């Protein structure tokens, strides 16, 4: 049996199981009420896509800079990186969002919720990225750096031609996992009243009292974003494949 076929079969079996469970719940389905609000779903989903894309780029950049800090020989720079990573990874995103929006953004006069949301989400995800990148670079053996120096490469060439191409392959699965998390974590931006996918689904539920009809499309909407991310990661892994 091919791998793809196996995936489809298992997904179908799982869907059947869920369908059976749903059929046993005594629940009065009312899709028409939710259908009225389809534009709100689409608008929320598009906002989530925009949030995620912006945070995806920003968190990768922040993670790259922070991982450089973590490896700095300057103790002060290293300390900045380390405190950032530990503080962010050790506290809930919810708290970071509330403090970031109602305290810090307020203090500096930043009023655009979307910008603040993307910033906080990127800083949150960037801390995880930083450790992933640091681990990937540290896993490249010293002999590779020696070889690069021995043939006369500059440090920048060594990074670009020797270290990064190998590190990319090592960090791809972890980065993909982190990006999938980021897409789902963007749902928390609802607490600072960004009208993204999750908040809009909650609002539809509040108006229609159709809880499952509001939230099932939500799950599907996130899967539409996260499954291609996973597929892209696997495809890239294949492209970068070589035995060390």
């Amino acid at each position, binding site marked *: 049996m091919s791998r793809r076929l196996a995936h489809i079969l298992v997904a179908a079996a799982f869907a059947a199981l869920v369908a059976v469970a749903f059929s046993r719940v005594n629940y009065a389905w009312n899709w028409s009420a939710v259908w009225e609000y389809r534009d709100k779903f689409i608008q929320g989903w598009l906002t989530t896509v925009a949030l995620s894309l912006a945070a995806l780029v920003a968190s990768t950049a922040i993670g790259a800079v922070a991982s450089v800090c973590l490896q700095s020989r300057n103790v002060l720079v290293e300390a900045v990186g380390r405190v950032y990573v530990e503080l962010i990874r050790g506290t809930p995103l919810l708290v970071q969002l509330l403090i970031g929006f109602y305290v810090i953004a307020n203090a500096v006069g930043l009023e655009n919720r979307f910008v603040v949301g993307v910033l906080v989400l990127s800083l949150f995800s960037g801390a995880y990225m930083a450790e992933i990148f640091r681990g990937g670079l540290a896993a490249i*053996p010293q*002999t*590779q750096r*020696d*070889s*690069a*120096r*021995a*043939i*006369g*490469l*500059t440090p920048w*060439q060594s990074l670009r*031609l*020797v270290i990064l*191409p*190998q590190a990319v*392959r090592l960090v791809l699965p972890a980065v993909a996992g982190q990006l999938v998390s980021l897409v789902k974590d963007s749902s928390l931006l609802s607490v600072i009243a960004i009208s993204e996918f999750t908040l809009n689904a909650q609002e539809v539920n509040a108006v229609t009292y159709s809880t499952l009809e509001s939230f099932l499309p939500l799950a599907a909407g996130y899967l539409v974003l996260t499954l291609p991310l996973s597929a892209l990661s696997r495809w890239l892994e294949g492209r*970068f494949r*070589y*035995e*060390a």
Partner: protein
Amino acid sequence: MKLEIAELTQRFGATTVLDRLSLSTGDIQALVLVGPSGGGKSTLLRILAGLDVPVAGSVAFDGAALPRDEEALRRYRRTVGTVFQAYNLFPHLSALDNLLLPLVHVHGLSRQAALDRVREPLERFQLMPHASKRPAELSGGQKQRIAILRALVVQPQRIFLDEPTSALDPEMTAEVLEMIGELKALGTQLVLVTHEMGFARRVADEVAFIGEGRVLAHGAAGFMFDHCPEPRVRGFFDRIVA
């Protein structure tokens, strides 16, 4: 080449690896460094290859002193080749791309010019059939021969080899040593660290015995292997042969 080393000292933390080591060779083509593990051979070779900077002392090839700043050392490294014990090659590149990388990115050749440059040596050393393979698909001996070729194709003044066969089985060792022997025959200058005493005797013009961070004995190959009066050297050779 004529190598002059004066009072060379290298420390790692509290450990002194090279202890005011001095050596002056004749005008020779191949110098072999032998001696016990931990004696300082590899440390010395890394300094000669411009990879590490000693804490004190000086090194000069043919009267030209090795620089101490990284920028100048990088320019120096571009004029020499270095082969390590193992894992030299870049695993994400094919054997061919491993050869092309320094030519294109360090020595400024076009890809076509670089391809023209590597074709003849690839054929000479029977490595053409393996050119498109990644290092993981090559045997240990093939990997090391590609690594030697990568050092060779930039047309260096000399090649440094740090125990190039100690990670290989006897058959692969033979094919790599044969290649190094050919380099010697082609006129390439060599500085070689090895435990292959039979090969050292064949290829070396001079042999330096490095132990305890110093040169314990030094001379022509025949003298060193057969008539060296230094007891620590005699004892070492006797143990190796036995």
